[in-house]
């Protein structure tokens, strides 16, 4: 059953799957993310899970749901979206096997790729597939490198990687098919705090290349993201 809602002047198409879950869709990805955040923060009593992806939001419904509750979703337009925050993350662009593939596919040298990454500003457009994993938008087309057909068994926590059109950040150790280009000495995961990840959707990230020595220094000082950003702002 496909219908639409109007939330915050945005037309949202939605489908009700047997009162088990709702899927909300829109072509305006930025606004959809903002609305997804708003729905999540409202903590509706008839919603047990809110999953926000780039083009679709899923609301898992519980037995408190009935059709009349959809009106509550409409009223989300009262929500004031917080401003996206700009962060800087230091990355040690360590040499690796994955760099050979990145150079091969892009046709650029490693230093050119790093220069391009450093000059771009990325947006966090999605969380998942694992807690702490970030999908980042803003990778220029010439840097797109398709994911591996056979994922590698182990990608270390705090790795930055290229996967197709996205830059990704792994906050946890995991297997993965993305091409690792570097690692950060700063951990973005803060389990068991809420939120589990320091960032919010739509926050922006810039990367600053650092060498191994600085990487180890920041790691040993256990600098937090806030501390690092305060430092770089003041210098």
């Amino acid at each position, binding site marked *: 059953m496909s219908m639409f809602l109007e939330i915050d002047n945005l037309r949202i198409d939605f*489908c009700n*799957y*047997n009162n*088990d*879950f709702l*899927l909300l869709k829109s072509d305006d990805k930025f606004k959809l993310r903002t609305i*997804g*955040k708003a729905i*999540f923060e409202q*903590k509706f009593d008839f919603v*047990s*899970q*809110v*999953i*926000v*992806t*780039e*083009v*679709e*939001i*899923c609301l*898992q419904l519980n037995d408190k749901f009935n059709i009349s509750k959809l009106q509550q979703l409409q009223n989300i337009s009262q929500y004031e979206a917080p401003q996206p925050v700009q962060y800087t993350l230091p990355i040690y662009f360590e040499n690796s096997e994955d760099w050979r593939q990145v150079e091969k596919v892009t046709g650029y040298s490693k230093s050119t790729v790093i220069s391009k990454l450093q000059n771009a500003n990325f947006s966090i457009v*999605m*969380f*998942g*597939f*694992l*807690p*702490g*994993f970030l*999908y980042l938008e803003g990778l220029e087309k010439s840097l797109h490198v398709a994911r591996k057909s056979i994922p590698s068994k182990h990608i270390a926590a705090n790795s930055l990687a290229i996967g197709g059109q996205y830059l990704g950040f792994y906050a*946890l150790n*995991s297997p993965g098919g993305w091409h690792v280009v570097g690692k950060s000495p700063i951990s973005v995961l803060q*389990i*068991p705090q*809420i*939120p*589990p*990840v320091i960032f919010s959707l739509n926050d922006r990230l810039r990367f600053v290349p650092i060498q191994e020595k600085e990487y180890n220094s920041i790691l040993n000082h256990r600098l937090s993201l806030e501390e690092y950003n305060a430092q770089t702002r003041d210098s």
Partner: protein
Amino acid sequence: MTTIQDNGRLGLGFYAVPQAGFMDVYSAQQALTLLNLPLDYPLIECTFLPPQIKFKAPAQIALTGADFNWTIDNRGVELRKIITLNCGDVLAGQPAKSGLRGYIAINGKLNLKPVYGSYATYLNAKIGGFKGRLLRAGDSLTWSNSTHVAKQPDLHSQPLKRFIIPLKSGPEFQYLSQESQIQLAGGRYKISADSNRMGARLLGFKLTCSRPQLNYSLPVLPGFVQLPPSGQPIVLLQDGQVSGGYPRIAYIPTSYLSEFNQIPFGVEFKFKMLE
């Protein structure tokens, strides 16, 4: 594979933290109810292979779920009954029969720290349960005793079901070929032993889809059936990831997941489309 579970942590899917929790809610709640314990208490969940547990204090326990041929000091004990153990008693069993997962509840509260309000173990992020991991030989669990002694309630045994799992069509069902739609609706499958709390890999009729890979990662929930390029469906389960790029061809309604999660590896079951 033995972990501590409870009814899981809802409401964190936004941060890609899945619900986790009991795979067979029905049997887990049955164990807690037998001991008159709150339904949000943690207990031990074991899959296929039973743990061997030595009790270093007297305890009352309840065993539910699959038949692991449980024994205490080598004498057989029944499922779905309150069992009293003495100091030094050893609980042991054999690989599960006619089911896959078993539950061991203790008349008391396990001394564990909740994470995000739940004792459920989520292995990928190493949170919850006992140190965020599988229980292994040498581990020690303690509990604070319940203040009451549980009395045997009137509980009927779970009726033996032929494994018929209800299914509803998913968001990408229409991309299945006509033949595949019909096949799935009444499909016979087996669960591969290469399955875990994140997902069950099914073996059976190969399905074909006009969109082998979605353009974007889309949301998924436990019970969703994905179709990877191999044509062999995957059922996402309680520890599964919250988004994915494979077509979501169908889903098992939440209330039937308990039953699905008791189907032994390699045993044939049948889907039944509910529309």
